[in-house]
């Protein structure tokens, strides 16, 4: 399937597939992304769909999109602007035109540009006419009609025929980027194994799209994006939510403890529960509780009897769990609370991403209630930090909050599969019947961690609860000095975790320099891409992206002191920066904030840093 047309080499490309919710764009995008990953590219994706289950057809509100960024260098974000936009209808064009690069290619399904659809999209006139000023390359394809034509003898009903038009679009794009069709063909055979007519039809349309692209004038060249230099290993695609679920299970297996997850469904966290529920084969127990409070309470009950209890949720659910979290704080039971952040306050923007639950995670409980907080920074490393959260919970006998966000959770990326053997060991302080002179609140001198006697252990019967407890023995105590001591123990215990986490790394100049960009959690891809582009331009900029939030890594102050200026980027109105002002008050932090339910763009980050560089 070679072509005589010109070939252009590129380092990276962004494609956005967009159409009506029913047009199958998520599947199309995933296929392209998987094929590219298999081909050896670095890939990052971003699915973007309406909040409604079935948003009204043909309208901008009903547009579903899937963006794929792939290339031969490190790809860490789905990209700000796209090189290729596939728009299956006028609404898709309207919703996405602003995100196309001036030199980009737009492929439209011209068959859907009738008066009705143009109106529904909110255009007063056909946007494809009178657009002489466009710098885009416009490819008008009769995607619907050609699909119909291709399948006219298939014997399928019209609805099924039209539904496969997404494969035609995919075929066009495969040709453009010189991709093999086999992965998708295999996929179609598997997916429609039971209805071979449909599998055949889809494959036929896919090839028809490919051939169409090969033949028409409008596409004068195609592109070559060579494989990237990727670390050796076995890879798979993984979403943040799946990676989170797997990280939890990996930690449980490593600690040799049963995993129990009590949760209540909530967007965008539900998939973690769903993924865990699939894993009865690994002995995972999940319970869809009656509400968030029951979710965490069942998990606490499970932790109490020697499981690793887990509960998963998003902002409003975390608010509901806050009273119960404190029970785990005062009883010093291990527990992992996963909060997949979304736009707030209140119900807010449930399908959008944000980093605005940090305050709540740090401070949202009555009394003096210190707790470790860990944040994932890529879809893939949700695995690592779910593992770390669990490790910390078990080794330090404390609830831990893992923060991810809607962007990481739904986003997928190729991910190198770790080997279980290489993961750090996890040793919870469980005691057995032999334990001499067991006292439930006797602490390890170095870590201040108490020991865990699990119900069922002969001879270690004891009572715990939410009232303040006597140092050592753990019985109820109203002694004033004891309360202060216990509050200090609980605080210091969390601070001492800094001995059990790695030092903070710097991307850029380890020995210091002009500007230190500071980020945390899910903004990593955008911040590091921006910083690396600036560095390529010769700018003196480095990045510290935090995953361990409380406690902060021990070298934080040391690192900060090596830079002249400190600017904190985050997707909220300034929560981490305020936290740093308390924890490391020696520095004068600048801040850049965005609260739009969207990730940063590389462009805005670079602009802000360039401005700062000019201020010199």
């Amino acid at each position, binding site marked *: 399937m070679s072509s005589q047309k010109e070939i252009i080499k590129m380092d990276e490309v962004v494609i956005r597939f967009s159409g009506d919710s029913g047009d199958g764009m998520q599947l199309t995008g995933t296929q392209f992304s998987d094929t590219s990953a298999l081909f050896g590219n670095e890939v990052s994706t971003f699915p973007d769909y309406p909040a409604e289950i079935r948003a009204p057809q043909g309208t901008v509100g009903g547009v579903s999109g899937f963006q794929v960024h792939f290339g031969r260098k490190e790809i860490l974000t789905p990209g700000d602007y796209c090189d290729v936009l596939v728009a299956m209808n006028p609404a898709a064009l309207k919703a996405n035109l602003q995100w196309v690069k001036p030199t980009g290619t737009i492929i439209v399904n011209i068959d859907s540009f009738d008066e009705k659809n143009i109106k529904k999209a909110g255009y007063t006139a056909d946007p494809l006419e009178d657009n002489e000023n466009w710098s885009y390359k416009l490819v008008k394809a009769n995607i619907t009609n050609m699909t119909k034509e291709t399948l006219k003898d298939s014997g399928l009903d019209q609805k099924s025929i039209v539904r496969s038009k997404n494969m035609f679009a995919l075929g066009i794009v495969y040709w453009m980027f010189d991709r093999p069709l086999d992965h998708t063909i295999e996929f179609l055979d598997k997916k429609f194994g039971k209805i071979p007519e449909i599998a055949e039809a889809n494959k036929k349309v896919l090839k028809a799209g490919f051939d169409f692209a090969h033949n028409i004038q409008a596409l004068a060249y195609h592109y070559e994006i060579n494989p990237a230099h990727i670390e050796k290993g076995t*890879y798979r695609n993984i979403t943040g939510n799946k990676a989170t679920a797997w990280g939890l299970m990996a930690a449980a297996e490593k600690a040799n403890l049963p995993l129990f997850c009590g949760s209540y469904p909530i967007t965008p966290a539900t998939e973690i529960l769903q993924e865990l529920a699939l*894993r*009865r084969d*690994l002995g995972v127990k999940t319970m869809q509780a009656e509400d968030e409070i*029951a979710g965490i309470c069942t998990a*606490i009950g499970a932790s*109490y009897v020697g499981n690793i209890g887990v509960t998963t949720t998003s902002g409003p659910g975390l608010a509901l769990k806050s009273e119960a979290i404190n029970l785990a704080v005062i009883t010093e039971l291990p527990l992992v609370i996963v909060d997949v952040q979304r736009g707030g306050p209140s119900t807010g923007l449930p399908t959008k991403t944000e980093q605005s639950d940090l305050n709540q995670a740090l401070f949202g409980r009555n009394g003096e209630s210190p707790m470790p907080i860990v944040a994932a920074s890529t879809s893939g490393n949700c695995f690592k930090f779910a593992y770390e959260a669990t490790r910390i919970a078990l080794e330090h006998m404390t609830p831990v909050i893992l923060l991810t966000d809607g962007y990481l959770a739904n986003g997928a990326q190729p991910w190198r599969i770790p080997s279980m053997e290489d993961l750090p060991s996890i040793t919870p302080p469980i005691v057995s019947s032999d334990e001499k002179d067991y006292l439930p609140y006797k602490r390890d001198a170095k870590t201040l961690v108490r020991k865990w006697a699990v119900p*069922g252990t002969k001879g270690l019967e004891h009572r715990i609860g939410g009232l303040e407890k006597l140092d050592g023995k753990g019985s109820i105590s109203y002694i004033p000095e004891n309360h202060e001591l216990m509050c200090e123990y609980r605080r210091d215990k969390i601070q001492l975790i800094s001995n059990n986490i790695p030092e903070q790394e710097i991307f850029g100049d380890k020995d210091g320099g002009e500007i230190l960009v500071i980020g945390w959690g899910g903004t990593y891809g955008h911040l590091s891409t921006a910083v690396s582009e600036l560095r390529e331009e010769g700018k003196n900029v480095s990045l510290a992206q935090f995953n361990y939030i409380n406690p902060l890594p021990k070298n934080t102050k040391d690192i900060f002191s090596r830079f002249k200026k400190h600017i904190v980027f985050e997707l909220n109105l300034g929560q981490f920066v305020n936290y740093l002002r308390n924890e490391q008050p020696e520095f004068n932090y600048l801040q850049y904030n965005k609260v739009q339910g969207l990730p940063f763009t590389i462009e805005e980050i670079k602009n802000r840093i360039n401005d700062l560089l000019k201020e010199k």
Partner: protein
Amino acid sequence: MCDKKYTPADFKSDQEIRWCPGCGDHAIIASVQRAMAEINIPKEDWAVISGIGCSSRFPYYMNTYGFHTIHGRAAAIATGVKCANSKLKVIQISGDGDATAIGGNHFIHALRRNIDLTMLLFNNKIYGLTKGQYSPTSEYGKKTKTSPYGTFEKPFKPLQLALGAQARFIARSIDTSINLTKDIIIEANKHKGTSLVEILQNCVIYNDGAHKYVTDRENARDRQIILKHGKPMLFGKNNDKGLILNSKGKLTVVEIGKHGVKLSDILVHDAHCLDPHIHWLLTNMEAPALPVALGVIRSVEDNAYNEELEKQIVNVKQSSKIKCMNDLLHQGDTWEVK
């Protein structure tokens, strides 16, 4: 069962009991300790989980594993305990406020799911620990600190609420009826699934005599009926009163020997009957027309949630190729980069 032969004293912890002198809770803990001694499983296999309230101080006084949790959540935490380790025998303790006010949702859901718990509901019809506010079981018109002019709320009947939530086991006792409570707890413990035991408890300080009409020794035998599965529903000082179903399908009191009523006319208690219809009528009985039902009212076999969860794990494990995390990590679409 275990080698050792326990006595009730084995279940007493070293903590001084802090309930008011005369509080019904003293008798209830004695019943529980006697029941545990009779059941005689290893002490370390008991987990006693409570919420918050006077009654919820219970675990501190028991020399077993115990967890005094937060207000209203005892049922949810006990659910987690049992599902995570079904070998443990779980006793859940709640006051009427803990179970039916703030904890109402967990109460109905535990019953619906049929988690294998013995749920003891200490119903003193008042908030004791916070010093005397009405509860969802307080009678209509009750004057308390938060209802100085009287309430205007119809109370829950906890056992009826439980039936509405598809309960499989419900029973009722009285704090001072130590043997009855003990016997019920032994039955509840045998029953797999949620066993709800409502215990009419006297709060001497804030609601003294709330159950007096029923518990009053002198008239007790006329006002209480102690149900036993397979036995006719008889009561009264001379055990000559009985219950029948009248033509409108309602329970009515008759006297044996009067109007030709014979012992064989009296309803025989069938706690195991799947259809909760008669059980519902029994929970609906109110003084003075009808006696108050005590004993095990309903006890129907059904799979417990925690059992089924474990069964599902066994089944899925058998048929799945994924045996460990490494299998999972490599399952499905993967590719090599060399």
